[in-house]
């Protein structure tokens, strides 16, 4: 609702944006009517919400446009129902997010544990260096670097294929080639933070009294690490991971831009910077917010599962 409210007070006239620079006022007015912008804000909002459930029809007669549920609106610039745009972009972003997630969790957490166990020895110092690089390098620099020097030079990326979505079900190899470098770039940025966080969480947990108790029971160091230390360290990491993943689902804007991936990030940034495509912006914003809300809920549930102290009796 608040997102909608923001759009209602924007200084730009959505109707005027519907048809480009040279536009007859009559067309603007007609479009205004078709888009339903000539009614009060509350009614607009009501129609919007209704449209989410049952779909929406713009205009009448020949110029009728039907958008099936969930209808987020209609993008005049792209001549598509926004929902369609989103449906096309979503698999890209999902592939990107899931792949990157798996990569950064395994590298980040794995490295963090290694660093904690070999504290102050060379694996730890190497991990620290990695953290430094990962957190300081912005994705646009690392992305471009890897594109230029690895992808294109070594001909690992097919420049013709960039910008298209290839489903993993159709052509897994091409799909993999499309995403491997974006995955690496994203993972690099996130893994660094996770390495540092995992390291400090594991170190902190290792000095807890209950670890000393476990040792005094006669448990081996391996079991202590796996069953006791990690079990305790997982909970805060899960929280972070859930929220980070949700944020990524909203669209990794820079990465998608650099690698020309037609995901939600690129969709929203185009809508904002190029097209002033308000319905699309509205939709992507709401979608991103929804992902975060759902993620929060899931993370809370997961935490309660992991930490029995949090559960309400």
């Amino acid at each position, binding site marked *: 609702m608040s997102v909608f409210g923001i759009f209602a007070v924007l200084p730009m006239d959505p109707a005027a944006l519907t048809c480009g620079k040279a536009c007859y006022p009559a067309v603007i007015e007609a479009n205004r009517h078709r888009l339903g912008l000539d009614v009060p804000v509350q009614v607009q909002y009501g129609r919007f919400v209704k449209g989410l459930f049952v779909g929406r029809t713009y205009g009448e007669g020949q110029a009728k446009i039907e958008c099936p549920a969930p209808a987020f609106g209609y993008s005049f610039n792209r001549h598509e129902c926004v929902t369609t745009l989103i449906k096309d972009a979503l698999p890209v972003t999902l592939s990107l997010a899931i792949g990157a997630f798996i990569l950064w969790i395994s590298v980040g957490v794995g490295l963090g544990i290694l660093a904690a166990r070999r504290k102050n020895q060379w694996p730890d110092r190497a991990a620290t260096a990695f953290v430094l690089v990962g957190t300081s390098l912005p994705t646009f620099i690392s992305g471009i670097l890897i594109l230029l020097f690895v992808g294109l030079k070594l001909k690992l990326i097919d420049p013709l294929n960039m910008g298209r979505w290839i489903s993993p079900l159709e052509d897994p190899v091409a799909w993999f080639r499309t995403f491997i470098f974006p995955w690496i770039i994203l993972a690099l940025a996130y893994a660094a933070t996770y390495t540092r966080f995992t390291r400090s969480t594991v170190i902190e947990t290792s000095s*807890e009294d209950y670890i000393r108790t476990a040792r*005094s029971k*006669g*448990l081996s160091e391996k079991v202590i690490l796996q069953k006791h230390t990690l079990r305790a360290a997982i909970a805060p990491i899960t929280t972070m991971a859930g929220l980070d993943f949700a944020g990524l689902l909203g669209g990794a804007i820079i990465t998608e831009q650099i690698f020309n991936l037609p995901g939600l990030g690129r969709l929203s940034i185009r809508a904002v910077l190029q097209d002033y495509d308000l319905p699309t912006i509205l939709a992507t914003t709401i979608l991103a917010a929804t992902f975060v809300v759902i993620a929060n809920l899931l993370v809370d549930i997961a935490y309660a599962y*992991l930490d*029995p102290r949090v559960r309400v009796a």
Partner: protein
Amino acid sequence: MTNSNSAKPFLEVKNLNVAFPTEDGLVKASSDISFNVARGETLAVVGESGSGKSVTSLAVMGLHNRKTAQISGQAFLNLESGPVDVISADEEVVRKLRGKAMSMIFQDPMSALHPYYSIGNQLIEAWSLYNEGSKEDGKKRAIEMLDLVGIPAANKRVDEYPHQFSGGMRQRVMIAMALINNPSLLIADEPTTALDVTVQSQILQLIRDMQKEFNMALILITHDLGVVAEVADRVNVMYAGKIVESGSADDIYYRPDHPYAIGLLNSIPRVDQIESKRLVAIPGQPPSLIHLPQGCSFRARCEFAERVPGNLCATTVPTLDQKSTDHFSRCHLPESELVKARVEIGGRK
């Protein structure tokens, strides 16, 4: 002279030293520690913070980091299969003795149990390490132990989590977990310090009952001289990393030889002595374990140092000498001066 292990003490510590290198220097946490504990016997190790009272027991349990701690000396566990020196033995060998031949319980029951696993899970974990059997068998044993230590409705509570228990109950769980494999030695490190006094007496009673039940050697580490008096057969008084006096409980409380022990006993108020005579405080503070003074570590705070001829206290570390049967003290003060000193102190009270 029988050769049976029941005649030998279960634990024999000989000249144990533990030191930790730190940024500021080598911390000589405990030096020249020798003592024995037999099954069924209770040894109290008394001292203040920095006295080294916990360090020795942690060394016996093998809980120090072998890569950083410098440990020398011997500590024999006289098992049925023969004596094992836990200081020089392989880490794996010592690990397999932990929780089985020897167990330890710690001070703060609030943090000593893993918050994410049920107590049943943690008890079964301890049990299955050394016992063949199914999870059901383990659970049965866990419930048995919880019953034994006085947890009501044990069969229900076994699935609960540590945060659902009070401090006293958690300590009982710790005791159950430590005893689940019938150890021959139990080390209790300040087991009641974090508990309320009415709960404290419950737990001490429990520890005593369990000792009889399992015929264990018990080492009780504490700073509380009242607790020691209730539980101990023998007492080791520690100061600045060394044993300064060792004897039976009666020896230490009624015939203390070392000025530190004497000073300590005079400085504590007692519930059963209502006169508000001024406490006789020991002046000063314990020395740094990195820069131990030359000679006797207690000299700076000792009011009898001048009575020792030849300035011995400043130059020579006194050895732990036998003063009477099974009563040892680490002090240069000659017997005659000690007798005079006792009379003096008695007059002050």
